[in-house]
C-alpha cells in the first residue's frame, strides 16, 4: 500500500495511562518507512528511556524577552501599559523586566515610540536529536524552574517537521487538556487517546475527547490494562461512536518490562502485529475522514 506522510499524536487526559508505551512501540514496529518520534512531554520526557537514542545534536532553546536601552528610553510607560502580564514595569527613571512573567508577545518592542527595546533571550530548555536504530528521536527537556512549556514544544515539533519530514511522525504528547497538550497535538492528522478502564481514566478521557473535538482532529482510543477496572470506557465509546483501536491487557510481564525500560514488542513479539494493525486502522480512518471533508 502507498501511504502519504502522516503525523499522529499520542495523548491522554490522565497521566500514566501508557502514552509513551504506545508511542515507542509503534515507532519501532513500523518497517519500510522513515519514522520520527517527537517527545513533546517536555516537563517529563520519557521516550528516550525506552529507545536509548544515540544523541547527535543538542540545541538550546530560548525565547524573546525585552531589554530596555535606558539611554534611549523616555519613560513614557507605553510598554507597561500594553503588557497584560505585568512583565515590564515603568517606575520614574527605571524600567523593570520580569522574565518569568513574559509571554514573548513582542508587544512592548512594537509599541515603544523611540525603539528603546531590544531583543534579549531567556533559555527555557534544550532539544535533543538522535537515532535509535532507524527511528529518528527528538525530545525536549524543559529547564527546571521554567513554567512555560509550549514554546519548547513548538521547538521540538519544528525540529521534526520543518525539513526532512519522515513518512510517519509520532508525537508523544504531555498529559492533560490545557495549553501544552494543545501545542503538541495542533495540526496533526490523527490523535490516539490512551486510557485505562477506571473512573479516573474515563473522566479524563471525556475531557480529552472534548479537546480533540474542539480541534476537529480525527481520533481513536486505546484501552490499556484493559483487563482491570470496569466496563464504563467501552459503554462510553460505544455511545459516542468512538473507535477502539487496540486493547492491551494488564500483564505482569509487560509491567515488569516497562519498569526496567523494555519495549513490549521485544518481550512479546506478537504485539508487533497488533501495532501494525493499529497503524493500518489509523491510515484507514485518516483516508475516510479526508473523504468526508472533501
Amino acid at each position, binding site marked *: 500500500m502507498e501511504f502519504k506522510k502522516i503525523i499522529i499524536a499520542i495523548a491522554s487526559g490522565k497521566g500514566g495511562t501508557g502514552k509513551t508505551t504506545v508511542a515507542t512501540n509503534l515507532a519501532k514496529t513500523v518497517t519500510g518507512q522513515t519514522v520520527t518520534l517527537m517527545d513533546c512531554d517536555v*516537563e517529563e520526557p520519557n521516550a528516550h528511556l525506552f529507545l536509548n537514542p544515540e544523541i547527535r545534536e543538542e540545541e538550546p532553546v530560548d525565547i524573546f524577552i525585552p531589554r530596555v536601552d535606558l539611554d534611549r528610553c523616555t519613560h513614557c510607560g507605553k510598554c507597561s501599559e500594553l503588557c497584560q502580564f505585568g512583565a515590564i514595569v515603568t517606575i520614574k527613571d527605571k524600567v523593570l523586566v520580569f522574565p518569568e512573567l513574559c509571554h514573548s508577545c513582542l508587544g512592548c518592542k512594537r509599541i515603544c515610540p523611540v525603539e528603546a527595546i531590544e531583543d534579549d533571550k531567556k533559555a527555557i530548555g534544550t532539544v535533543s536529536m538522535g537515532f535509535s536504530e532507524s527511528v529518528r528521536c527528538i525530545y525536549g527537556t524543559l529547564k527546571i524552574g521554567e513554567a512555560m512549556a509550549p514554546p519548547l514544544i513548538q521547538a521540538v515539533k519544528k525540529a521534526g517537521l520543518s525539513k526532512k519530514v519522515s513518512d510517519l511522525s509520532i508525537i508523544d504528547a504531555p498529559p492533560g487538556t*490545557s495549553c501544552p497538550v494543545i501545542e503538541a497535538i495542533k495540526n496533526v492528522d490523527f490523535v490516539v487517546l490512551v486510557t485505562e478502564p477506571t473512573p479516573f481514566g474515563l473522566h479524563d478521557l471525556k475531557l480529552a475527547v472534548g479537546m480533540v473535538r474542539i480541534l476537529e482532529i480525527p481520533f481513536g482510543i486505546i484501552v490499556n490494562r484493559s483487563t482491570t477496572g470496569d466496563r464504563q470506557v467501552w459503554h462510553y465509546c460505544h455511545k459516542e461512536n468512538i473507535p477502539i483501536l487496540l486493547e492491551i491487557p494488564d500483564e505482569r510481564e509487560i509491567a515488569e518490562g516497562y519498569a526496567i525500560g523494555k519495549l513490549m514488542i521485544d518481550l512479546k513479539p506478537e504485539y508487533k502485529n497488533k501495532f501494525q494493525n493499529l497503524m493500518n486502522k489509523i491510515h484507514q480512518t485518516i483516508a475516510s475522514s479526508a473523504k468526508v471533508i472533501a
Partner: protein
Amino acid sequence: MKEIVIISGKGGTGKTTITASLAALWKNTIIADCDVDAADLHLLMQPLTKQTNPFYSGKLPNIDMNLCNECKKCIEVCEFNAIRNDFSVSKIDCEGCGTCAFFCPTGAIRLEDRHCGEWYLSETRFGPMVHARLGIAEANSGKLVTLIRKEAKQLAEKKGLDLILIDGSPGIGCPVISSITGASLVVIVTEPTVSGIHDMERVLGLTSHFQISSSVIINKADLNREMSQQIESVCKNCNIEVLGRIPYDRIVTKAMVEGNPVVEVDNGPVTQEIQSISHQIHNRLYSNQ
C-alpha cells in the same frame, strides 16, 4: 497554617488515590484539588457543591466589525497567528497579550475578560473542599491553582482549621510551580520504573530549586525491587526521607471503581502503610515548631 502538596512528576503513580486516603484519615482538613487540568479527586470525595464561581483570567480580543476597516494591522502584529484572515480570533491560539488592541487604528478591538472555567466550594464527608474545572483547551491553569490555594486558605481561617491538603498536578511546569511555591511540605509519589525515577529526580530538582522541603512515597513498591532500591538510594543521596513503601494491590483499583478512598474499604497492607505515612507526615509538620 500548613499546606501539604502531593505531586508526582510522572502521571498515574497514585497521587490522587493517596491524597484521598489522607483526607479520609485526617478528617477536618481543607481539601484542595489543584490538578485543575485533569481533576479527579472529586470522584473519590463525592463533594456536595455549595457554591459555583466563574473563573476569569487573561483577556480575549473582541473585534467590532462595524469599526474595522480591514487594514490587517492586528494580524500583522499578533505573534501567535491568532487572528484569521476573516478577523475572527482563534481562542486556542490567542495568548491574550492585547497587542492587537493597542495597534488597531480604528479602536475596533476591545479586550474582554476571558472565562476559563469554574471553581467550587464544596462539602465532603471528610471536610470542606475547594476544587475547579478548567475549561477544555483553556490556558491559565497556574492562575487557577493560585486562586484555589488562596480560597482554601481563607476557608481554613474561617473554619479555624490548620491544615490544607493539596492534590497537585503532574509535570514540573506552570501549574506545578503554582501549587508548590511556599508550601510547608511537598510529598512526591513515585513508582519503581525507569520513568518513575527519572521524573521523580526532575521534581526533586524543582523542589530544591524553590527550596521547599519534600519527601517521597514509593507506590507499588514491590513491582520491581531493584528500581525501588534505586529510588531509596537517590533519596538518600539527596537527603530526602522516604515516608513509606506502598505495596501493589488490586484493592486500590477496586476501591477507585467503587468511588472510595482505599483506606475506607481495606484493612490490609496498603491501608496500614498509608496510616503509617499519615503519622509521619504529621510528625514532620508539627515536630519542629
